[in-house]
């Protein structure tokens, strides 16, 4: 991991609240793996004070891409960055997914949870069969079709809460059937906490190997401040920034 001042190469507004930012960093792009994240300095002042964690959406040296939704002060500031602005980033951070070969992998993405999933599809689709379940609240929250469709997918299942795109329902609705019908070996999921809670109940004992990528309120991103603690099944705390963000689903206390 390194902290670097990088150039923003593009900050593309996808729709009213979502942005895809392309940043030039030879070091981070060459050293990152699916699951890794970066800490981004959204302001040169001390307000806000902390860097913000963002999963890496795509990495093609010398560039990385971040996909983010404007949800607060930090992401609002990030949305204001323009081409050729400088930005300080620390990364790559966190653990990453193991390597897989000749597996049937089901990826489950809820909303912004598509970020590490997209990176994983890109990495694993060459040597594995990838099934993707992607869901969000409504059409405007379900973005990046073109990029997703360009990937080698066995099957794509889309969901929106209001049915504006894909099936009406939650991303977790048919997961059990999809796993059984396609003889899935491995699941990799990322999304909001309620999604994980539902998912655990549905697939914990189904026999798949289940990896999750977790979000957390973070201070430093490299294991110093102990802010991003998550309780594990045996009542210890793990740090999402250094022990994660990738965890085995069954290791976390839900």
């Amino acid at each position, binding site marked *: *991991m*390194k*902290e670097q001042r990088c150039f923003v190469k593009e900050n593309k507004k996808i729709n009213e609240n979502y942005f895809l930012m392309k940043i030039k960093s030879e070091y981070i792009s060459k050293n990152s793996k699916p699951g890794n994240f970066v800490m981004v*300095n959204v302001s040169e*002042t*001390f*307000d*806000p*004070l*902390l*860097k913000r964690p963002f999963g890496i959406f795509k990495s093609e040296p010398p560039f990385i891409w971040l996909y983010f939704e404007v949800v607060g002060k930090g992401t609002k500031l990030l949305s204001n960055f323009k081409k050729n602005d400088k930005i*300080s980033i*620390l990364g790559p951070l966190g653990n990453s997914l193991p390597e897989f070969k000749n597996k049937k992998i089901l990826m489950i993405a809820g909303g912004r949870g598509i970020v590490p999933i997209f990176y994983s599809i890109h990495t694993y689709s060459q040597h594995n069969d990838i099934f993707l379940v992607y869901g969000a609240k409504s059409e405007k929250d379900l973005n990046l079709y073109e990029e997703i469709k360009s990937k080698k997918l066995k099957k794509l299942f889309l969901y929106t809460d209001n049915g504006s795109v894909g099936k009406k329902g939650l991303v977790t609705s048919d997961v059990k059937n999809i796993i059984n019908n396609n003889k899935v070996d491995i699941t990799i999921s990322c999304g909001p906490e309620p999604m994980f809670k539902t998912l655990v109940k549905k697939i914990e004992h189904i026999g798949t190997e289940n990896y999750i990528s977790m979000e*957390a*309120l973070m*201070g*430093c991103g*490299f*294991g*110093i*401040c*102990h*802010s*991003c*603690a*998550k*309780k594990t099944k045996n*009542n*210890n*705390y793990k740090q999402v920034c250094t022990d994660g963000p990738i965890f085995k689903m069954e290791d976390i206390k839900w």
Partner: protein
Amino acid sequence: MVDLSTDLGFIKLKNPVITASGTFGYGEEFQDFFNLDILGAFVLKGIYKNPKSGNSPPRIHETASGLLNSIGLPGPGAKELQKIVKRIHRLTKTPIIINVCGESDEEYIEVAEIFDKMDEVTMLELNISCPNIKRGGKCPAQDEKHTYKLVNQIKHNTSKPLIVKLSPNVNDISSIAISAEQGGADCISLVNTFLGMAVDLDSKRPVFKNLFAGLSGPAIKPLALKLVWETVQSVHIPVIGIGGITSGRDVMEFILTGASAVQIGTINIVEPKASVRIIKEIKDIMKKLNIESLDEIKGKLKI
């Protein structure tokens, strides 16, 4: 050539920049960023006798130019830390300071004794001011008599230089500082975090389960500077200034106010190489002010 060294009486540091407890891990984590040899000294994350898992999340809340924390001092316990200390001592000869914690006077003494015996440890910093261990945040630092008694007991049972780290959450910092000095402290460091509070309008609940949390970061710098000034005026032992320092300029302001050294805290978690930058900035400022040693400016505030 500017001379950045500072004399604490019992030890001379090569520069006044010490990294503060809880913001620098055990030092090892920063090796990827810079060579630990450049630091004046570093304080390890506070340690209790037994392993502690810390508070339940949320543990932090950002405020305007500040950070509230209620981490709860998670740590591996004294025995495990001894192994870590041996390991980091092989990495660097920079003085290692142990931040001694305790839920009781007995525990404080026991922990202090354990690290007092280690050659790898240069100094002890007594954390009598950690505000967020128990609900309400009461600590020895809020009581003159308790401060005196605890410092005195530790001094009787140990031989290494003892820094006493004060809490800002008191009515009269001078009387607490004097108690620590009379108890036998070799040095005072201040401030620890200011107690603060955050509430969530949506859930109508406090953000932190412990209700209060400790505020740090640039937001507290003027408050810290005032307390450092008052302390410097009241005691004869050296004072280490802490609170919201993010630049070489901030360091020089604390030294001008009378601090002999400083601790860099929250900025370490925001900008891992902050200490490197700050040391360079101190050098640049000294050159610009045309001063060769920090003594030329230390405590020279014109009132």
